């Protein structure tokens, strides 16, 4: 036993010494590891945005302060509170909570209740909580569900019960083709984001050879397709990875051999971050571009210093650049507004404005949202007959000094 431990340790020490010796020698030669690396480096310097314009007459949750409603009036958030994608849910319901707090503070005669239901972001677990919520007659409007899969699985329950819901994050284009009258999307869908991302890469980033890697999620597949279509001849190869995959070495060697100068990863940060990290560790010097599923501080944490080459596209508005929102959110959640915080806030505001205007049952509130045509804090809200926003904007973001900063609207 003892002898074995000692031997193992010695062996390991010897090996370590040997190899690191090798690498230290190599490291002495400047610019060592380029022979295997693909493509030219695209060092594009796009300045970060420091402020964005907010609509002057944006509707705020406080309203005119004279609203009255029954004390049982309730709005709900349904979506992930736990599970792998909990952070996104937390960003959203803090935004909703903020809107409701501001509303209740200004309107003494209308105290709207707030309830949360946890789906873990899993389509198979979502029917229980959604059914529970639709059964509670006091709930007249819902913000959610955040993910495309769970929205697909439960949209018809809302439809049957006539309960309006505005998703602050689900971007799959097919969601609005089900004929649901109660489904509204509070942001642009992937059919908007994909082409915008393609244009961003070939335009502003000046990429000539783009490699697209998509995961196996509904979101990743849809976005991968629209982006690939948008890239046209700049697309030099594609690969598919699996949710939960950790080792991307084979995909990376394909990318290096194809000499790509930009990689678009269509999926979530759980796989995107280790992918980018391994890509850079293998000597990739081009840019790494990802959609809103990657735009999260977790990406930077898990990709480490490799994240410096990353850009993101997102149909979400940088809420942190709206000072009033940023400070109020910080006071409530003790954190910076995250991805989709402001979408949650705006969606809740639309519903609260409806309640204040006297639409205090489910049928009236659906109608209210259907005919809504006003500015929110982040953008103009007016839905078409399918439930899509009419003029969504896609923003670009980049990583600067270990933080995600916006670089302005892209794709126009």
């Amino acid at each position: 036993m003892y002898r074995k431990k000692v031997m193992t340790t010695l062996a390991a020490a010897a090996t370590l010494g040997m190899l690191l010796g090798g690498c230290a020698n190599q490291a002495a030669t400047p610019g060592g590891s380029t022979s295997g690396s693909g493509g030219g480096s695209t060092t594009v310097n796009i300045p970060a945005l420091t402020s964005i314009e907010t609509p002057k007459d944006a509707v705020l949750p406080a309203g005119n302060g004279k609203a009255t409603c029954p004390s049982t009036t309730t709005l709900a958030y349904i979506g992930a509170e736990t599970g792998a994608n909990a952070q996104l849910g937390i960003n959203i319901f803090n935004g909703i909570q903020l809107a409701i707090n501001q509303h209740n503070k200004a309107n003494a005669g209308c105290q709207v209740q707030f309830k949360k239901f946890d789906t873990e972001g899993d389509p198979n677990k979502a029917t229980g909580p959604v059914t529970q919520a639709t059964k509670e007659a006091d709930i007249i409007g819902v913000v959610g569900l955040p993910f495309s899969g769970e929205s697909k699985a439960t949209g018809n329950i809302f439809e049957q019960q006539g309960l309006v819901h505005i998703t602050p994050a689900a971007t799959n284009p097919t969601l609005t083709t089900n004929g649901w009258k109660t489904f509204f999307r509070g942001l642009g869908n992937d059919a908007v984001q994909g082409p915008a991302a393609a244009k961003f890469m070939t335009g502003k980033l000046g990429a000539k050879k783009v490699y697209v890697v998509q995961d196996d999620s509904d979101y990743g597949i849809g976005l991968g397709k629209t982006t690939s279509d948008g890239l046209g001849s700049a697309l030099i190869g594609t690969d598919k990875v699996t949710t939960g995959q950790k080792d991307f070495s084979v995909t990376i060697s394909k990318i290096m051999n194809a000499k790509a100068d930009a990689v678009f990863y269509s999926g979530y940060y759980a796989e995107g971050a280790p992918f980018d990290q391994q890509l850079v560790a293998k000597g990739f010097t081009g840019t790494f571009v990802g959609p809103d599923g990657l735009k999260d501080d977790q990406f930077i944490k898990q990709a480490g210093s490799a994240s410096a080459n990353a850009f993101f596209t997102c149909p979400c508005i940088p809420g942190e650049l709206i000072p009033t929102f940023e400070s109020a959110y910080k006071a409530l959640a003790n954190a910076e507004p995250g991805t989709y915080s402001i979408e949650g806030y705006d969606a809740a505001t639309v519903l609260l404005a409806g309640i204040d205007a006297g639409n205090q049952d489910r049928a009236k509130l659906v109608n209210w949202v259907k005919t809504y045509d006003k500015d929110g804090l982040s953008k103009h809200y007016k839905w078409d007959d399918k439930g899509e926003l009419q003029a969504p904007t896609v923003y670009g973001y980049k990583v600067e000094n270990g933080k995600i900063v916006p670089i302005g609207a892209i794709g126009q």
Partner: protein
Amino acid sequence: MIPTLLTVLPALSTDDNSWITFDIPSLMQNFWSATFDGLTFGSIYALVALGYTLVYGVLNLINFAHSEVFIMGCYGVWFTLSFLGFGPSAPNLSLGSIVVNLLLALIVAVCASALTAFVLERLAYKPLRKRNAPRLVFLITAIGASFTIQYTIFLVRGPVPEQALTMFKPTPIFDVFGTIVDSQQLLIVIAAVIMMVVTERFISKSRTGRGIRAVAQDPDTATLMGVNKEKIIITTFVIGGILAGAAALFYVMKIPSGVQYNGGFILGIKAFAAAVLGGIGNVRGALLGGLLLGLIGNYGQILLGNSQWTDVVAFVVLVLVLLLRPEGILGTSLGRSRA
């Protein structure tokens, strides 16, 4: 049923013909890099597989919680390195201090894993042995223990992976047919193989090793011959833990963002498959199985077009091997091995 099948079968093949391809040029082009990467990851599988194999040898138990023994090692590495001041970028340290730091991390990881294995054996499996519980009950307890450890980590450290830490920047050592072999790959493969050889010598030559083989072959007779069965079992768990701790260091080196509460589970399943592929209970089999699994997965995913094929190819090969050789490639259990 027949009409159903008739409609299903053509539709599966005509819906989109591109789902299966045989991309031989790509395999030729990426062959060597796939080989080196496969061997690197395969060595990690092999180290973890040894833990499954040894425990299986003496207890006939698929120790499902071994993946948690491994992940505790990963946390050991992570805590040591973050305590030593490693960060997201490669540290600017001299060679000597990197070696010392990594050795420290290795020691902590090995201790963390071995301790977890020890506690697991005492708290979860020993009471069952005392009650002479059926084997399936051990398996379910192992699953329960695996959940318990995972979600204890979950409560303490949260759902997301830990901050990625870079140990050193891999540098090219030499190249084979134009493909670079870097220091990280070489380090992992060589260190893993040395550990395997040491383990194998230990099992085949030392007194304790003989005891392990005796218990694996026939626990009752071994006890009659004066082997302390309990001590042997504990030793086996601890050796498995030590190897898992070493695997943890290499894993975190390769996948810095892999330190997560459930990060070991899938790797554990594949390591177990590697052990079965080589012949479970066989120390050399674990090495062979691990390396083969790494290589097959990599070749398969290049040949068939995308990396979603990796596990399908690996498992299909496993099934085929078992059909031809029902005891794995090298066959025989620990007790009978001439290892």
